[in-house]
């Protein structure tokens, strides 16, 4: 397949409580093999998926938050987090996992994967996509 499309995975749910975040992440990992132009967006309670220090021991849920750290290795390195959603939940960038990727075109420099964007900026990003899958 020669055609490259812009895929954006929009994450709207908290990591636990429903299965949307976990199964959504599975789609992103499989999709990474197709060499499309991939990004992820985190809005609403979806911003909680990236929160540092997730501990699921008492709830007996699978803590899949370490998987987000692997996204950079899959060349999924544009994670857009909506600023308003963070603020509405009393969070800021420091509360999120420090996700990075290595840029092979820049002497493997380590770069941040998370970009905090405004609601208006995210709207423009959504407008630019070919395929939007929301979870």
């Amino acid at each position, binding site marked *: *397949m020669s*055609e490259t*499309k812009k*895929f954006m995975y929009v994450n709207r749910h908290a990591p636990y409580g429903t*299965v*949307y975040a976990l*199964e959504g992440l*599975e*789609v992103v990992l*499989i*999709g990474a*093999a*197709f060499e*499309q132009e991939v990004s992820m967006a985190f809005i609403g309670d979806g911003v909680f998926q990236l929160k540092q220090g997730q501990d699921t021991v008492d709830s007996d849920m699978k803590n899949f938050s370490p998987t987000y750290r692997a996204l950079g290795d899959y060349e999924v390195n544009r994670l857009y987090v909506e600023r308003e959603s963070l603020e509405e939940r009393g969070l800021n960038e420091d509360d999120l996992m420090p996700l990075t990727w290595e840029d092979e075109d820049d002497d493997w420099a380590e770069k941040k994967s998370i970009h905090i964007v405004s609601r208006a900026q995210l709207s423009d990003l959504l407008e630019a996509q*070919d*395929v*939007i*899958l*929301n*979870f």
Partner: protein
Amino acid sequence: MKFSVMVNEGPYTHQAADTAYHFIDAALKAGHEVFRVFFYHDGVNNGTRMTTPPQDDRNIVNRWSALAAEHDLDLVLCVAAAQRRGILDADEAKRNGKDADNIAPGFRISGLGQLIEAGIQSDRVLVFGD
């Protein structure tokens, strides 16, 4: 136009499966093409032939099977989501040591790559869910 559709919710609990069905039915009647229907999350429960709704209600599973037979629709259940929820075809049942399968006619089980491929091949992908 060439559409693909993703169905993310189970039948009866959520109207997403109904809305997706009616959209696809209308699109096909209007002469559009539906490349694939991909069932994910609880949406895989649209594909079990064991579904037995009351006589006076719509049969969502049979409705999908009939639409697939009429239009040669490609109805795909995600294998990982289906295994979690106990939806199996004969091969998957054998492979996982289960004593029965329950996939409905017209459906097939395959991987998430089918969803990404649908996104690449189609003009539009519509997601029906919560």
